[in-house]
């Protein structure tokens, strides 16, 4: 198992290195000029040229990449070419908030998906199963911003119990801080739950037909015990990978959700930086997202290995 984990870790490092290279070159070959964005449309060519020189934008891409990797290895993420602020200063506070948001959403979505999936699987073909399946399909088909605006109108405007904008996460005090997370977290959880719930339902149904389940029934075990001690753990294995893959969906969801609620996180910074062609900031965020995705998949592999003894032999 240790060898397997080490091998996966090695591949993870290679993948992250590839992500960094692709990100750097992709963001540097797009036909745009951050100097123009920084100085505005009426900046003179001399001012633009001076700015490019000052920010090192006139040097070859490969040279800048090598320098960037070198600095990265020293823990220096570079400086925003537009604001001259260190990338770490821009990213760090937002990263923390976005991680809380993402993990919080997962903490809601995963148990909810299991509850809904198991409940539906136990009632296969009945109206409650059909109703839940249709609801899951419907919610799954809604874009994130529709879910976000729907929750905003419901819990922020019609039943005004939650703040409809999330600036409290950065500038709030006391209860304002946790409350600022609620609506974006619920949005992400709602977006993530349906697909996972459907996977749980399908796997629980599949495992329920296995001989060991019939044998457990015949031995007179309680249905609840059979479900939660025998069926669900076995049905969870494929779902673990689905949860890891949901990280990608989570990233997309975070970008949109943060914009809708004005949540001061990494997604909003990414949108701004892409729009302004602030390449060092984009590189840092994309690299962090890529690393997060790789890490989640690595953890999923390890979790599956831990849950399934047959894979360890």
């Amino acid at each position, binding site marked *: 198992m240790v060898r397997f984990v080490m091998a996966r870790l090695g591949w993870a490092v290679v993948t992250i290195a590839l992500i960094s290279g692709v990100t750097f070159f992709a963001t540097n070959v797009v036909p745009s000029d951050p100097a123009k*964005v920084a100085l*505005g*449309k009426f*900046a003179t060519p001399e001012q633009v040229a001076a700015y490019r020189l000052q920010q090192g934008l006139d040097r070859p891409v490969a040279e800048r990449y090598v320098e960037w990797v070198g600095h990265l290895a020293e823990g220096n993420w570079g400086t925003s070419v537009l604001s001259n602020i260190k990338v770490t200063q821009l990213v760090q506070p937002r990263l923390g908030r976005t991680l809380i948001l993402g993990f919080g959403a997962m903490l809601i979505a995963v148990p909810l998906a299991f509850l809904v999936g198991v409940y539906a699987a136990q009632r296969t073909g009945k109206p409650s199963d059909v109703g839940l399946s249709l609801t899951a399909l419907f919610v799954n088909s809604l874009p994130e911003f529709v879910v976000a605006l729907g929750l*905003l109108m419901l819990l922020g405007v019609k039943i005004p119990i939650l703040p409809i*904008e999330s600036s409290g996460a*950065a*500038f709030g005090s006391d209860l304002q801080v946790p409350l600022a997370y609620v609506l974006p977290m619920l949005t992400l959880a709602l977006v993530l739950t349906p697909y996972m719930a459907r996977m749980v339902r399908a796997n629980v149904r599949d495992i329920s037909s296995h001989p060991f389940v019939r044998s457990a029934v015949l031995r007179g075990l309680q249905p609840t015990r059979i479900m939660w001690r025998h069926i669900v753990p076995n049905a969870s294995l494929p779902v673990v990978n689905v949860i890891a893959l949901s990280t990608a969906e989570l990233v997309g969801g975070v970008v949109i959700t943060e914009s809708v609620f004005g949540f001061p996180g990494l997604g909003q910074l990414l949108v701004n930086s892409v729009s*302004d062609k*602030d390449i060092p900031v984009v590189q840092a965020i994309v690299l962090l997202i890529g690393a997060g995705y790789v890490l989640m998949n690595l953890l999923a592999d390890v979790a599956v290995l831990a849950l399934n003894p047959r894979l360890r032999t």
Partner: protein
Amino acid sequence: MNGDGNLKPTRREVLVYGAGALAALSISPLIAACATGSSTPSGKKGGTLKFGVNSGKSTDTFDPARALTSMPIVGGGMLYDNLLDMDVNWKLTPALASDYSPSSDVKTWTFKIRNGVQFHNGKTLTSDDVKAWYLHVLDKSNGPSGYGILHPILDPSGITTPDPTTIVFSLKEPDAFFGVKVAHYTLHIPAQGITDWVNAPVGTGPFKLKSFQPGTGFEVVRNPNYWQSGKPLLDGITCVNIPEQQTLVQAVLTGDVHVSTLVPSSSYASFDGSSTAQLIDLQSYSPFTFDVDTSIKPYSDPRVSKAMKMCIDRKKFLNIIFKDRGLVSADSLIPPSDPYYPKDLQPFPYDPEQAKSLLAAAGYANGFKDNLWTSTAYPYLDEAAAFGKEAWAVAKLNMTIQSVSNDAYIAAFLHAPIVMDYYLRLHPVTMFEQYYASTSDSNTTRLKDSQIDGWIKELKATVDVSKQQELSGEIIKRYNDIAAEIVPVHFGQYAARKKKITGLKINPMTDYDFRETALS
């Protein structure tokens, strides 16, 4: 649109001159110090106001010379002061300058620095601080906005400080409107030697910075040593960025946010029916334009440009794009409501048949093709571009809409033949210098006309108000006749606020003046 590709702060950004200077000069060249700050605000003290914007960028900075978007510009009004303040009627009042006076030829301007004004770090303001900042702005490498305002009329050597409370500006040419230039937000006066504009900007303003996260928001707290006694009333202000406009609107309607920047016209009706929130008229009719290149064919042919103007049904344009909140206009960057707008000037009539005849006479009976540049990065541009495309199609002018990203849109300015654009209301002389003058780098219609240039120079040199109005009228009429620029309407601008806020004043530079604002 402003000089930086940002639509919202345009009025603030390029407002350079003001009629206040005219009014003041017409009374006397020696202007007595007004009682700025002597009035005692009556609102309840205390509380923190939440101010919502939707254009926050990670590029936001409290360097006044580089501030481009709403957040740092509005914030600049909280942290800093100018030598002079200016109100929405362009009236100037002394601020950090307790007194100011131009020479009889309006070529030399002397400002007396107010005694006892302290920066947030406790240092006393002197004329050297003012000189240092003006020299900073006059350095081209420190950003185009302030440089573009000052360098045409002022050299670094033209600034002298005979004593710590006096600064003298010897201009390169007469400028009756210099008083208004010093009220521009790029000429907010920070303390000398600031290098960290995010964490440690220091000014003399009514509030001090507590924290700032570019693109996210900032917090300011009351400056207890503010030179205007009794102000500000608020304990502090928290400015937050809410990119989604509908969320910002709902945040004001539900009371999460006390005051916002501009709200979209689609949400006006929501405020009409609200008992807790209302729209704020920013008292600014601003030109919405098709920037057409007058210097190239076919647009350099007056018959073609006139035909294009006559294809636009301006009333319909105003109704569809701005829900009738604005004014139909001749092709002038000065609104019809402005006292300098000539009363007898009418827009070219909507007449597609005559437009076709004009095009045929110019050799374009079968029309022509071109690209129309616009961007989703700013509101209304795409809708207006679609309107123009349909209108011109009647005369066989086939426009392909290029709706592009912000940077591509900015790159199109002064290069592409037709670009959708809008400006914010400026004093006429501002508009003339920035957008009508042949020598201006911001002349988006690329008109070069010696007669207009001569009139602008004459206008700046005279202190006779009636002469100024006459010259302004001539400039506006000639521009309407010979520039290919199309200005179908001037649109009204509205922000939003909770009704319970008191003492909120409109400021032409920073949108708001929060010094007398109270949460009651």
